């Protein structure tokens, strides 16, 4: 058994090494700057907790956390919509094979491409509003009005990722024995009962899996879209913590303050992570 242990460590070593050097170490090294006024050019001065004090009263940072919370609250849509779509495709709704193919397109496109396309489509005189006018509706400033901007960007993000989740659910569905569905129908269950009482409960482990990877996507991948579609605006309507950190590092030369934000963000994400890990742990045992 000693042999097994050594081999196991050797097998894990490359992964661990890469992780320590490129992900863990930068995080730790970076956090030291959080206690300085480092501007990236001159020498850093130790200023204790001043950055964190400033952070507490920084309305922009507060807004970024508020926006993050809203985005996380949209998680049920990220998971639920693809779940229902997959179920209907699986059950053979009219046009199912076509939908199956069409829904995959957005997955392969990068956020630069998606962001560029949608900022043209969703601008005030873009094709979306032209469609609205055609339907006799009032045009909406999707990206320029603070009531709609975050919803617009999140919708595009969901659009960009839902195909992936449909795909995962579809593969899970193919493991659901058709006999169970047939038996339920024979017993008089209607279609909606079959979907919500039988099929979806059977997919529970996959729903959890999707929730986990989607949460990661939500937390780490909004940056690109926001950068291109709204630049954080209007006002702070679409500011995300990563975006603010990016601004502080780049245009403002305030690397110390950016590092303090990174620590707070990581703590916040860490809390979510704990919840997620509990879910994964259940899966793991």
């Amino acid at each position, binding site marked *: 058994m000693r042999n097994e242990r050594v081999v196991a460590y050797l097998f894990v*070593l490359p992964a661990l090494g890469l992780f320590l050097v490129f992900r863990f170490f930068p995080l730790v090294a970076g956090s030291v700057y959080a206690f300085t006024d480092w501007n990236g*050019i001159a020498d850093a001065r130790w200023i204790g907790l001043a950055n964190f004090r400033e952070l507490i009263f920084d309305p922009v940072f507060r807004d970024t956390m508020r926006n993050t919370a809203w985005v996380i609250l949209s998680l049920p849509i990220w998971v639920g919509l693809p779940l229902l779509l997959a179920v209907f495709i699986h059950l053979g709704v009219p046009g199912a094979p076509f939908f199956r193919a069409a829904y995959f397109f957005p997955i392969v496109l990068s956020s630069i491409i998606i962001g560029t396309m949608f900022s043209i489509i*969703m*601008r005030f005189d873009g094709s979306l509003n032209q469609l609205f006018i055609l339907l006799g509706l009032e045009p909406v400033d999707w*990206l*320029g*009005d603070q009531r709609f901007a975050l919803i617009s960007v999140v919708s595009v993000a969901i659009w960009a990722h839902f195909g992936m989740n449909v795909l995962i659910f579809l593969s899970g569905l193919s493991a659901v024995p058709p006999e169970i569905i047939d038996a339920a129908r024979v017993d008089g269950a209607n279609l909606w009962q079959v979907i919500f009482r039988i099929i979806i409960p059977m997919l529970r482990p996959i729903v959890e899996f999707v929730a986990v990877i989607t949460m990661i996507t939500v937390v780490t991948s909004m940056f690109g879209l926001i950068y291109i579609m709204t630049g954080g*605006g209007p006002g702070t309507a679409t500011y995300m913590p990563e975006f603010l950190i990016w601004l502080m590092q*780049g245009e403002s030369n305030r690397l110390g303050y950016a590092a303090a934000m990174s620590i707070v963000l990581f703590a916040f994400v860490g809390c979510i992570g704990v919840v997620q890990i509990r879910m994964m742990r259940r899966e793991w045992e």
Partner: protein
Amino acid sequence: MFKRIALLSTITSLALAAGASLAFAADKTLVVWDFKSTDPLVKPYFDFVKETFEKAHPGVVIKQIAQPADSYYTVLGTAINAKQGPDVALLHGGNQALDRADAFVPLKDEVADVVPKLAGLPAFLRSDGAYVALPLTVQGAVYYMNKEVLREAGLDADMVPQTWEDFTAVCEAIKSKTKASCLTIGNKDGVDFINVIAAIAEGTWSKETRAKFIAHDLSWTSDDMRAVFQTMQTMIDKGWLEKGANSYSPYTDAVNIFAGARTGLILGLISDAPNSWKNVEDLAGSGEVGVAMPVAIGQTPEQKPNRLEVDGGIGFGITSWSQNKDLAVDYIKTAVSPEAAAVLMETAGGLPSNEAVDVSTIDSPAAKEIIRLLNCCTDDKRIKSYYGVAERRELQRLGQLLLTGDTTVDQVLQSLESVRQAEIARAK
């Protein structure tokens, strides 16, 4: 089995080493960073500079790298921090260059021979009298007017508004007689709002107030500042502005709206940009574009020092860690030389900072008017370049909300003043 694993880890470390050795391939290479050399209009200029320089310095290779513009200062920041990367970097004039002054070589004696020929230098002037960078172009903002829209509104197509009253008359006529809006602000990232505010301030403030603002001494809650924002609020309230400003980019969308005669005016740049005369005329038609300086507000045109604010738009600086400083000095001299600047003027409509360039060859009517203004009426600092970095960002945010009616002038000014106070406190 262990041999296999050993082999694996050897391969991994070899790969790492290969990565390391690849980084030092060429010997004498001068690395130049910019944010626009992939633009097909600007590319001929950079090619010309590269060719000229390499011919004069055999054995030296120019490596021209265009960084994505919207990530430029972040990537440059990482380079500055690690003291790795470019020998020469293109910078925007004003605070964007001055805030990074310590990362660049202070240019003084080594450029003494070209300095007298260059306009726009104050935008790169350090407090010690040296320069962060040498300007390539001069830059400023004017209103471009679509003559088709003016005619449709029953106005004289060649009229040039001088005062706020003229401006009001133009906008009211456009509003009442055409479907077009008077002014389109392309405020997607919030920058165009800042430019319009600067243009209003230019027409409103006395020379003293301007100097105070540039020195970062003007309070945002002062009457001078409030007057500027009230004027902006008036433009919003009267419905002169194109709807949806926050979703339009100033360089493409706003220009397209202008070219499509859906708006009468845009505030554009005078040099090397898609919203400067060359592209605007290409799209709207030569002779169809009028040019107006920011109008005098609350004073007569005679009281307003008859000026167009112009400074160095973009310029080349040498990074403090560069191993090839002498070559780099030669490079930037080549880059701002009359011959090179002429190429930029030709292809991209860049107005050269080098006064030795013959601008009389341009036959665009709009450009001719701009050059006339440059010769008669310029002032060498632009309000726009001297917003403090934190205030600038705050104004980008709040301007968008002011346009949509989600905040008030008072709230904007108070918020900006507290940001300014915080900046002052931190500087101590």
